[in-house]
Structure formats: structure tokens, C-alpha cells
């Protein structure tokens, strides 16, 4: 899958993806961090349950929806990583209230 360029900078930001610690670069979007961590899909669709991964990387396609710090259906490609951020992949429909 994706690999970082050799001169991409330090992996200084600690986040978790589905509870597992992952290091990201300051300035990464959550979607970039998911790719760099080797995640091949970040959700399954609400109706047919097929897997989806970040696609357009610019906020248009809504394929990269994940739960970030407890809030469901956030666009991973539009949210920069922050120290301590908790990212969860989603299965099916968003739960109401989170």
C-alpha cells in the first residue's frame, strides 16, 4: 500500500486507530494517517455493508467517514491529526448519539 517519502518529516503525533497506538506526522490528515498505517478500509457502508476507504482526499466523496474522538461520520480527509486523537473505523450505520 502507501509508504511515506524518506524526507516526510518526523512521526511526532501519537494517535490511536481502533485502540492501537499509531504515529503520524504533524500536518497529516486522519485519512493520510490511516493509509500510512496500512488500513485498507475505514468503514463499511450503511445499507449493503461493502468496505470503503478514503478516495478523493479533498472532502468531496464522503468515502472516508470514521469516528473521531467519539463523533461518528467525520470526514477523515478534512481533519488534521492531533496528539492523543482517538480514531475508530466504522461498521455500517452511525450510532445515534455518537
Amino acid at each position, binding site marked *: 500500500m502507501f509508504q511515506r517519502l524518506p524526507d516526510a518529516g518526523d512521526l511526532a503525533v501519537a494517535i490511536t486507530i481502533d485502540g492501537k497506538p499509531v504515529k503520524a506526522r504533524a500536518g497529516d490528515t486522519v485519512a493520510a494517517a490511516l493509509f500510512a498505517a496500512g488500513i485498507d478500509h475505514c468503514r463499511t457502508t450503511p445499507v449493503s455493508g461493502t468496505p470503503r476507504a478514503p478516495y478523493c482526499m479533498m472532502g468531496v466523496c464522503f468515502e472516508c467517514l470514521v469516528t473521531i474522538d467519539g463523533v461518528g461520520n467525520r470526514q477523515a480527509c478534512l481533519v488534521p491529526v492531533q496528539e492523543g486523537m482517538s480514531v475508530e473505523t466504522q461498521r455500517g*450505520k452511525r450510532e445515534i448519539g455518537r
Partner: protein
Amino acid sequence: MAREFDIAVIGGGLVGAAIAWGLGKIGQRVAVLDEGDIAFRASRGNFALVWVQSKGLGMPEYAGWTVRSSEAWGGFADELKEQTGLDICHQRPGGFHLALSEAELANRESILKRLHNQPAMQRYEWEIMDRARVQRMLPQVGPEVVGGSYCPLDGHVNSPRLFRALHAGMQQLGVTYLPNHPVEQITYRDRQFVMHTPAGEVRSGKLVLAAGNGNARLGPMVGLNVPVRPQRGQIVVTEKAAPFLNYPVVTVRQTDEGGVMLGDSLEETGFDPTVGTGVISTIAERAVRMFPVLARLNVVRTWAALRVMTQDGFPIYDQSATCPGAFVATCHSGVTLAANHALVLAPLIAGGSLPPETFEVFSARRFDVPAAA
């Protein structure tokens, strides 16, 4: 070449398609003349309730007609599924009308008491529930909900799929669907109707006007008065969420696929189907007061559609005195009444007349009262 049919239905929305499906089922040769995708199509914008409670204050026969359709809906949905393979997700768990203040609840109770106190009112179950009882059935209600009315006959469907199933089903039954056939003129001669459209003429022995707000223009061409006007309703829909709402509420319902629809506005704005933030934000604000968990969901779309409204709010079913064989069917509850239109109205139209003991009350002649001196 003119095309000839037993019956022409003008309008391919839910009302026209349900009638055409019912006519096709009993072996009539039917054409549906439809305006096309530019039509003001309430069938693509409705709220998809199959609703009974609170209908019929001022015309108890309309309450009876609505209950009859509600009772027939389950079998109708099964029949459509068996025929087309499309599950229109009819559910009938009962439905709520929620009150956000004691005054709203008292008003609700008063309206329902007046409705059910009418002579000739059909008896069916309904009740006013206090907050505690509502909360047992709808655990997510917010603190401002003081109570509501519940009726076990209420339900809902997936209405875009109903629309698709009726179109697929009627065509399987041999109905000829003619899109892009806006009817400009209708002539009646020698017991035959001729519909003039930019795509050519269509002839038929009988005619059903099911063109929604277009019936006001078409009716007088065949001796029918159809005083209807557009009334705008706006709807908000959220992203799909895991199921949380076990019963439809008249202004909030969760679809089978998880999206939450919010609606039920009424505006007199003519033929203007645009959406405005003022009404939309009021709809959303009331919905969030009813169910605070909705506040975190993202809205994915808003839209508006035009109801087909009469001055008393009740349907018009009528037959022409001067052009025998011409009928009109128009209402603002094309989903709720679809079962009746397909299973009751269509066979009567095929038979040539609407029995006055059931249908006289729905005639537009009810509006022909002399002006007060």
C-alpha cells in the same frame, strides 16, 4: 398514428400509477400519459406516512376511507412485492403526534375528541398518552415532550420504492407508460376522449385525471371542476443512522435504511418548490427538542414539494356529467390512499361509475355553495 386504449390516465405520480396498476390488474388496456421529469411531482417529495390519526375532522367519510386504505395496505404491499420483487418496507407499528407543551397536548386532545365525536365517524383505537407512557415506547424523547397522541393504525413505507414498484408493476401488467406526453387539450366526441400532446394524440374510451395540481387546468376540458392549489412542504433528511425510533412520529420518522426524515411544514407559496433556511431550521429545531439525539446527526439533503390541496383539505373523486367516462382523483395523501386507489377505485372506474352512496361526499360539487348575501 393515434394510439387507442380502454382507459387513459393523465398523470404518472403515485395516484395515477396506483390507479393504472389497479386497472391493469383487471385486464384493462391502459395508457399513462405523464408530463416527464420536469413535473411538480409530489410523489418524489412526500413524507411516506401511511397515516390515519387526525384525518377527517369535517368529513368523517374521509376518515373511513383512510382507515379502509390503511387496513388494505399490508396485503397491497405483499402483492406488489410478489409481483415486482421490490420490498416497499410497509410497517404499521402505530404512530405518534408529540406535544412540546401542555397547551399543545390539550389542543391535540381537543381536536381528536371533536374528530371522534362526529356522527358517522368510523370507530378505531387512539389515545392520548402522558410523558411517562410515551417515553416507554420512544425512549429517546427529550425533556420538553409532555405527551402525545398514539394511533395503532398508523405506519409508513419506503415511498420512492413504492413509486418504482407501481411503475414496474403496471408495466408488467401491460400498461403503456408514455412519458413526455404533457396533455395540452382534451376533446370528447362520440364517446371517445382524444388527448392532444406534443408527442401526438392518444385516444381512449375512458379518462382518469390524476395529474395533481394539473387537474385544475385539465378538469374543465371534460366538464369537471377541480379546485386544487399547491401547498409547499419542506423536508430535511439526515445521514443514515442505526435504528433508534421504533414508531413514526408525524414530523419525524426513520426510514428502513436509517436516514431520519423531518418535515410537515405548510406554506401557501404557489408553484414555488424552493427550500428556505427559515422553515428548515424551525423543522430541525422542533425535531431536536423532540429527540435531542438528532442534534449530532449531519443533514445530507433538504427539499420541498408541492401538495395538491383543496380548500377543505379532503380529496376529490368525481365523474363528469357532460363527458361520461371522465373521472378525476386527487388528494394530498397519495401514499396512504394508494391501496384504495389501486384496489377499490380502479375497478369502479373500469365499471364506469362511482357509486354515489360512497363517493357523492367527495365530489367537488361540495364547493358549489351560493355566496352568502
